[in-house]
């Protein structure tokens, strides 16, 4: 009992959909919805209301969750979007209250659900270090002591007295992460902070997390980056629909998660806009994987091209919105990331309306196996992730052994993340053996 850092017993959290998901409630909204239900049809955005009762549909974001975490353990939480991971971390961080159940936390806890919480664009880097440090729970003296270290880690010495609104997005993120990295809690909760930033930034984050784990602190880590989970965490919990499905060594949990039938998704649709991923600028409508001839599929012939369609709805004009995808293989390794660079919308703010963006993945490119595509919409300058659905689709690439794919007539296993059909050429040089000449 002495070495337990966190114990969670039957934790559950219930949300009222009508109240939580519709933003900026005003009395006018209620009046407008009242009229709509009188007319007997619901428009986009209000579809979850139950007839008569108004706004009382509920769902359990978390149900009967029980586990213990020992001191010094690094534990990953995996699962699809909406599986309850973030809700769980929010409860453990005391941001929101559980509906039932209880959790005990032994030790100083710090949570990092976002880098740069409370950063203010008008303030200088110096001021923001103090402000953000205080928000994360550091004492003023502690921040002053670590100040130089933080600045050096962030590599922003020259700009420390410049307002952060003039920082590049990379500098901004480095500074934000630097403050967080100098927290010294006994328990650290981290939610998907690695989803932003360039690769060198992500590497820096991962290294820091590694060293934090090695120092014997307890780390709780949510990520869609499954390879980060397996490399950082000894143990992983897989959550699905608010319940713990699997709890064990991270390697084992991740492979169970990946091999579950849950992960074959040809398409996702959000007919109910109130629960669709997104924000008040843009939200997702649907994502689907299609073959060349327009069939929605989750099984793809290795030779055939395949296209991912992202349907989204722009709610506020004036933003440059860039659809992007990231493709990962079965081991969670990122194969590639691709951004929409269609000249029609590049650097152009989009008007309000519905869009469909399609990315074409060529045939004879991916290897056999299961792939997962995460899709989202971002604004690049300054970087803002409007939504990120992962997995958006998951599919199986199969080789029919017809002999005209890259594998040729080889029947055994072929390694490699990609399997392009490369051009080979041959020249017949001479009929004489060189060794015979010598």
């Amino acid at each position, binding site marked *: 009992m002495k070495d337990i850092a966190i114990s969670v017993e039957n934790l559950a959290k219930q*949300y009222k959909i009508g*109240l*939580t998901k519709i933003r*900026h*409630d*005003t*009395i006018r909204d209620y009046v407008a919805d009242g009229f709509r239900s009188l007319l007997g049809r619901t428009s986009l955005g209000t579809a979850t209301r139950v007839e008569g009762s108004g706004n009382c549909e509920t769902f359990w974001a978390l149900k009967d969750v029980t586990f213990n975490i020992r001191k010094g353990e690094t534990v990953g939480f995996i699962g699809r979007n909406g599986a309850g991971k973030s809700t769980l971390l*929010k*409860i*453990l*961080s*005391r*941001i*929101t*209250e*559980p*509906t*039932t*159940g*209880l*959790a*005990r*936390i*032994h*030790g*100083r*806890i710090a*949570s990092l*659900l*976002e880098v740069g*919480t*409370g950063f*203010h664009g*008008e*303030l200088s880097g110096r*001021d923001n270090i*103090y*402000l953000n440090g*205080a*928000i*994360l*729970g550091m*004492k*003023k003296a502690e921040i002053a002591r670590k100040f130089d270290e933080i600045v050096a880690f962030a590599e922003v010495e020259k700009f420390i007295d410049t307002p952060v609104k003039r920082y590049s997005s990379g500098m901004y993120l480095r500074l934000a992460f630097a403050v967080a990295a100098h927290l*010294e809690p*006994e328990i650290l909760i981290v939610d998907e902070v690695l989803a932003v930033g360039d690769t060198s930034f992500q590497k820096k984050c991962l290294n820091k997390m590694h060293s934090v784990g090695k120092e014997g602190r307890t780390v709780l880590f949510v990520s869609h980056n499954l390879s980060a989970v397996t490399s950082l965490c000894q143990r992983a919990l897989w959550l699905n629909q608010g319940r713990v499905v699997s709890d064990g060594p991270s390697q084992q949990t991740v492979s169970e998660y990946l091999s579950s039938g849950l992960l074959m998704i040809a398409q996702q649709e959000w007919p109910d806009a109130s629960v669709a991923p997104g924000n008040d600028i843009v939200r997702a409508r649907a994502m689907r994987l299609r073959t060349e001839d327009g069939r929605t599929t989750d099984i793809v012939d290795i030779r055939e091209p395949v296209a991912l369609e992202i349907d989204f709805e722009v709610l506020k004009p004036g933003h440059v919105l860039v659809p992007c995808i990231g493709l990962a293989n079965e081991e969670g390794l990122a194969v590639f990331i691709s951004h929409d660079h269609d000249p029609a919308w590049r650097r152009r703010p989009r008007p309000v309306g519905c869009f469909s963006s399609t990315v074409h993945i060529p045939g004879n490119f991916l290897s056999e196996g299961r792939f997962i595509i995460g899709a989202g919409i971002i604004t690049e300058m300054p970087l803002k992730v409007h939504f990120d659905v992962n997995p958006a689709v998951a599919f199986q690439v199969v080789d029919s052994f017809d002999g005209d794919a890259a594998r040729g007539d080889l029947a055994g296993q072929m390694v490699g993340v990609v399997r392009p059909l490369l051009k080979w050429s041959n020249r017949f040089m001479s009929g004489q053996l060189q060794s015979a000449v010598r």
Partner: protein
Amino acid sequence: MSKTQLSSLTTLVEPTVLIQPRRHLFDLDLQGIWAYRELLYFLVWRDLKVRYKQTLIGTGWVVIQPLMTMAIFTVIFGNFAKIPSDGLPYPIFSYAALLPWNLFSSSLSRGGESVVSNANLVTKIYFPRLILPLSGVLSPLADFAIALVILIGMMIWFGIAPTVGILMLPIFVLLAICTALAVGLWLAALNVRYRDVRYTIPFLIQIWMFASPVAYPVSLVPEKWRWLYSLNPMAGVIEGFRWALLGNQSPDVRVMAISTVVVVALLAGGIVYFKQMERTFADEV
């Protein structure tokens, strides 16, 4: 070396946090605010640093705002409407009232907006949520201090010496802040669920101003309605200011007592209501 000392210290005092649904109405956890006093300090500090950024005349606005209001009041209420000012020059009569009034009104509107305008903090980090309305009502104190210096200048100009009552000034300031906090707590919590509150606050402040002796003296209020009038704590605060600074007739002790009781009741109710609502802030804001 120091790092190992620190970590051994923190393991000695191991806090255990119990997370469960809040059961009692009066489970207020007020000592948590003391633990987070540095955050309160930094939020007020942020507010002050940011407020007049990217303006041409910066903190000049702190001076211009009350002076302009005073000029308008003097022309409209003093000259045109000929409202009596208890024998004092109208400009200083109204400025001495605008001082606590501006403190109160900006405290109230900042307090009422505090949770919604800090939604990014509420959804991402734990801290006692009461810190937010507290920081909202405290930050206008800096503007108040500057405006007070201007008043002293005006008093010298008009040749008015303060009375011993000036020692009571901090109490009137405290009463104004507590009134703003008491009402601000209700509004801040309501604002999370109903954004209508945001649009109601300016009207509330306007109506409240006309219900307070800012532009006119209390002596204008008919005697038989005074008791009702004194339910407004700002009436006592403003009369108190005029008395302490300008040597007006002293405020009625009964009026002050009623004001204080009203504020304490509102404040206690506000804290309980805020704590009750705060459980769903992160989900609804």
